[in-house]
């Protein structure tokens, strides 16, 4: 059994890497400027904000729940940052508090979902509207743009001779941390075990409620980090920040091979899916393909990603006789 597990190739991750290179090759035929180091690094900025949200969402999806309020939590974060900036608070004070506020938003979802056992989709759909409404109520309809430079450092600064965006390093650190959390710690195993069978996990002594609330809090906190990056990239805080970006986030998580019913998936897959989506989006931008067509492509990818298990099952059914002959030999 162990040797079988060792021989299992991460086919999906390999397919994603191939797709990234294919998308990159396609992009390089569109524009001579595509294959430059500056361009490649700065194009990653496009998916860092949804990427941070996707990392948080992946943790929530690992135990079969969902959080579609994350983009609204980001808006709460940006509006909170604008309040701190207006009050003249330094970023070192504002950032932890904003991350905490967004974490509390996540805890609110988590308590409703885990402790009160409400369906996560309906709850986060409600809080999606409620948080965004809250951001508008707090921040008023007029956007805030007078951020001082310290606030935009994380999202706009380039390090290492002005090549690597600071936010990319933040994303890389976050991705590695979440990968470690999900694949190398007890907490991660507990998340996946809840996703596979919540009853069995509960009988095995997993504190289901605590694990779930912690994951929602983490997802909220990541939305807070994304809010800080947002300020650096766009320099504006308004209640409608990141409106509609949840489609990209969910697409990345599903395309990354996370089972939306929980229990299966890898963080590396999610990170690769983000790179793939970012590359495709960048390429379509170079090819002057309009926003609507990009949305259609994104929707097709999402539908394709979600039909993947059905395809895999059909393939497995086709391959079964061969495999059993293998096992016999």
């Amino acid at each position, binding site marked *: 059994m162990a040797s079988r597990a060792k021989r299992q190739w991460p086919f999906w991750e390999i397919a994603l890497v191939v797709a990234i290179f294919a998308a990159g090759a396609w992009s390089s035929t569109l524009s001579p400027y595509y294959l430059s180091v500056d361009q490649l690094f700065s194009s990653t900025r496009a998916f860092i904000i949804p990427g941070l949200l996707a990392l948080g969402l992946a943790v929530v999806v690992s135990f079969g729940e969902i959080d579609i309020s994350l983009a609204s939590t980001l808006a709460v974060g940006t509006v909170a940052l604008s309040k701190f900036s207006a009050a003249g608070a330094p970023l070192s004070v504002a950032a932890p508090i904003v991350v905490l506020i967004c974490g509390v938003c996540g805890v609110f979802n988590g308590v409703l979902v885990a402790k009160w056992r*409400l369906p996560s989709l309906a709850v986060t759909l409600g809080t999606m*509207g409620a948080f965004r409404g*809250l951001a508008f109520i707090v921040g008023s309809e007029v956007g805030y743009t007078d951020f001082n430079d310290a606030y935009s450092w994380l999202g706009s600064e380039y390090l290492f001779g002005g090549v690597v965006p600071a936010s990319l390093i933040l994303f890389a650190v976050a991705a590695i941390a979440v990968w470690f959390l999900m694949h190398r710690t007890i907490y991660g195993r507990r998340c996946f075990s809840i996703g596979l069978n919540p009853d069995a996990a509960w009988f095995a002594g997993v504190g289901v409620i605590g694990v779930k609330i912690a994951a929602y809090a983490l997802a909220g906190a990541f939305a807070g980090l994304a809010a800080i990056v947002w300020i650096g990239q766009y320099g504006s805080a308004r209640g409608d920040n990141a409106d509609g970006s949840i489609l990209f986030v969910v697409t990345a998580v599903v395309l990354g091979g996370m089972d939306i019913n929980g229990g299966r998936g890898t963080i590396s897959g999610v990170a690769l899916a983000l790179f793939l989506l970012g590359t495709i989006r960048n390429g379509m931008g170079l090819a002057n393909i309009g926003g*609507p067509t990009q*949305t259609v492509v994104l929707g097709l990818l*999402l539908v394709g990603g979600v039909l993947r298990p059905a395809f895999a099952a059909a393939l497995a059914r086709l391959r079964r006789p061969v495999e059993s002959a293998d096992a016999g030999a």
Partner: protein
Amino acid sequence: MSNPSTPALAEAAPTRNLVQFALRLREAGVVAFLVLLGLAFGLLNDRFLSVQNLTIVASSAAILAIAACAQAVVLITRNLDVSVGSMMGLAAYLTADWAANHPGVTPVEVVVIPLAIGAALGAVNGLLVAYGKAPALIATLGTMSLYRGFTYIYAHGQEVTSSRVPRWMLTSVDARIAGVPALVLVAIAVVAAVAWFLYAYPLGRRIYAVGSNALAAWFFGLRSERVVFFAYTLCGLLCGVAGLLYAARVGTVTVVLASGWEMSSLAAAVIGGVSVSGGSGTVVGAALGALVLATIDNGLVLLHVPEFWRMFIQGAAIVAAVAVDALIAEAIRRSTGGRRR
């Protein structure tokens, strides 16, 4: 629990009554809430309870009631459709575009085209969810962007102005029959028809059966794929109706028509007592939920409350309704001696 002997069976009868009572309570609760809300707004603003204003409320609730009804049909099967707004938008745009480019268009075409388009779009959702075994949220989130994207691509950023669509299309929805707007009558007729279908026809009962206990329905021999597929197709058809009415009401059809309605329709259905965990609730409740949302909207406008409060209240209302739903389910479970996981 561990001893399913005859006494347990004897208790089954009062249990069923209690469940029915709770369900009845759920809709009665919506009506009571609506009355309270109406009285509160009436006290705060004397224009609210005027016949003219109540007619406005009913007209604005009418289209949402149909959309909520569409959403409810899918919710009852324990699924979800977030492409409702996009289906409405695409059906409305294509219909308005057809009417604008074919001067001699007949009313039959104008009614049949959006219904056919809506049913086809709903059937695609149904194929993905029922036969493709895709999770409802993800599949319809995908088609939501697909359908909206198609609308944008087809339209090339153009809108169909009200001057280009036939005059009768716009005036017919504003017509009044015995003082009641035709729009409201159509909505009542549609909701009543769907409610009767779900209540009295075998296929309607199967929609409930699949949603309340998929495993039991399977053991019973129901082909749940077909039922879910049908529910999505019916949802699309109803979205076609809603899209047509919306287009006729606003006159000028833009590509963003009815965007965000997936949220409003879901809010209306959930507030009206349709459970997101399937199998319970009625389309009449969903329509009442739409009326609650329209009342809140109208009241907030009359009270000069900024528009974004609506978003907050709508979201909070969904969470509250879901929580109430869970409390009722918990009470039923406790009274029937069911074990809490």
